């Protein structure tokens, strides 16, 4: 129906702005999930070279032990840590924990489900992911 259908579409779904940190977390969760699946498939292929003997394994290892490879692995560490930490927050939330208790709303109607505990968990997930990436850089680049 084109313009008349008026769905916000991919741009609207993927736009992390406008609606606060919870929407950013939603977007990051998707991106990191897709990134991790891509990495996992690549990792299964990468480790399968062990069947072709030491030279094939070392050749694959050399490919990953470049600056670009280390940067990519650093990103994977960040994605993995964020996806895990935020995922745990979401599992609790989806089960109905930490989303507040229903009650009579008072003006200006702040949403109890978007509470400080939840926001703190999102910021903590981002912070822990950043720390893990920093540690990964330190190990891989030997700094």
């Amino acid at each position: 129906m084109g313009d008349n259908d008026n769905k916000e579409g991919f741009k609207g779904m993927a736009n992390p702005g406008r609606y606060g940190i919870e929407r950013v977390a939603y977007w990051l969760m998707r991106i990191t999930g897709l990134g991790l699946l891509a990495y996992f498939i690549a990792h299964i292929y990468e480790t399968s070279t062990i069947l072709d003997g030491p030279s094939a394994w070392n050749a694959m290892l050399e490919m990953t032990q470049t600056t670009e490879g280390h940067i990519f692995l650093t990103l994977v560490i960040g994605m993995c840590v964020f996806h895990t930490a935020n995922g745990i927050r979401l599992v609790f939330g989806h089960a109905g924990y930490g989303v507040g208790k229903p009650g009579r709303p008072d003006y200006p109607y702040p949403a109890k489900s978007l509470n400080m505990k939840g926001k703190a968990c999102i910021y903590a997930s981002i912070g822990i992911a950043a720390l893990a990436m920093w540690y990964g850089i330190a190990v891989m680049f030997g700094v």
Partner: protein
Amino acid sequence: MEQKIHPKIKEYQEKQEESKVEVPKANLVTLKIKKYNPNKDSSSSYQNYQVPVEKWTTVLDALLDVKQNLDHSIGVRYSCRQAACGSCGMKINGKPKLACFTKISELDSTEITLEPMDNFPITRDLVVDFSRLFANHKKIMPYIMNNESEISNGTKEFLQDPKHVEEYIQFAGCIKCGLCNSACPTMAMDSSFVGPQALAQAYRYVADNRDKGKDNRLKVIDESHGIWRCHFAGSCSQVCPKGVDPAMGIQLLRGYLLGFRD
């Protein structure tokens, strides 16, 4: 199209010419309104209207001023003017809001963009079609299901203490304005998704201790475009003008399906 000048602005300008009085610029805003008629137009366009405002002027007041003085063809739906009917939902400066509940002064901008809500088919200009929202609302059976109702035998009365009322009263405040569905990231892509409005209403009835239809409702929402397509982005609760907090209702409802509540 020739731009009409608001009569009040014309009056100011004439006064200014006569007595050199400055026109108070802060009291003028431009409404940039998206216009589109699916029956006539091949694409949408924006039209600008300059209107004088006071600090208490709402977006709906300004819109009605434009309709009265500059362009009566603008399509806008409204009724109560006090955030009770849920008719005047629209995108105001990029975010879904009720036009009657949004003061121009709080927008902190001299140009205000008004567009129809996203994720609803456009009827005309700022008016959107609510058929899908109402169909989804109906789907979750928004009524008390109890065979022992006072209607069936005329004697049974449901008693409820305040503690039980607290469980659902916030969700009963839904005015079906559709702002939550417009802000939802899943609704932006998935036209089959039942949506935060209907899901919050499903919780409203499931949480009501007079209701015995929990299993029926959970069955309706437990499908591939049902409750599981909510990812707790919380945008619905951000924009709800009545404090319904659909995101809370949906997570509590999901608790039943995951076995954490009974």
